[in-house]
């Protein structure tokens, strides 16, 4: 079997015509389709990279100190002596009872600085 001859015969038997204009139109259509696909892919990757970096940066800024995220209003109450605590509750119930606007009183109680109250009460006791 003459392989070279066989190969040549087979190759020569091929039809070699093609419509050039159609080919060029298809070529540019396919090129644009691939380009759009690549752009979509790159946008997706860029968004993923941005979100990863942004997410990591945000996470790294979080702190273990919970007081940054939550109110520590109750902390002063914990250091009050029982006498001051009773005094604070008395004042609070007096204010609530005599208030015309309960919400205004609640906001006042929420915003109250307990340290001066404790100091004031301690001075009174002394």
């Amino acid at each position, binding site marked *: *079997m003459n*392989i*070279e001859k*066989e*190969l*040549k015969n*087979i*190759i020569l*038997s*091929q*039809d*070699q015509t*093609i419509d*050039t204009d159609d*080919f*060029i139109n*298809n*070529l*540019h259509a*396919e*090129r644009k389709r*691939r380009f759009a696909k690549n752009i979509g892919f790159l946008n997706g990757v860029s968004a993923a990279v941005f979100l990863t970096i942004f997410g990591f940066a945000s996470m790294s800024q979080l702190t273990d100190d919970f007081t940054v995220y939550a109110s520590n209003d109750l902390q002063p109450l914990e250091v009050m002596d029982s006498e001051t605590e009773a005094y604070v509750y008395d004042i609070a119930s007096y204010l609530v009872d005599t208030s015309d606007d309960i919400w205004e009183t609640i906001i006042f109680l929420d915003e109250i600085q307990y340290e001066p109250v404790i100091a004031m009460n301690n001075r009174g006791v002394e």
Partner: protein
Amino acid sequence: MRTDEELIKEFQNGSEEAFNELVKRHLPDTYGFFIKFTSDPIEAEDLAQDVFIKMYKALKKFKFQSKFKTYLYRANINMSNTYFKRNKWRNLLHLDQAPEPIYMDTSNEDEWKRNELWNAVSKLPSRQRMVVTMRISDEMPYKDIAKLMGISENSAKVNYHHAVKTLKNQLEN
């Protein structure tokens, strides 16, 4: 008539018409090259399309260190290598679907023979496959093959000799 190099320069300056002219000029050779392997006009057109899409990107940075025809031919060879590799896997994956030779219609004998031969070519080592491809499909002299592949002329001859011997053994078995 503008030369290939002039057309590439125009394309690099933004003329799509120049690129189309290049495609028109080299499509018959490129398509002819691929149809020899595939014996399928659609597949040959797809391969030619892939090559010219790559050319569209590559020519924007073309530095005129080689002739465009050589550059394109090398791209064709690389694409045919990709085709061979893809076909190898396709054949492996569809082995159970391959028709038995005994049931083949004699009118399809050429087609069958061609497929057998290209399947055998696809199993050759990369360098031998490239030499056979260039030598047989384009009747290229060893000197040109050696130049294109960056090997010596004798090495090209030895590769071709080995390839033909292997093909002969495979087909006779």
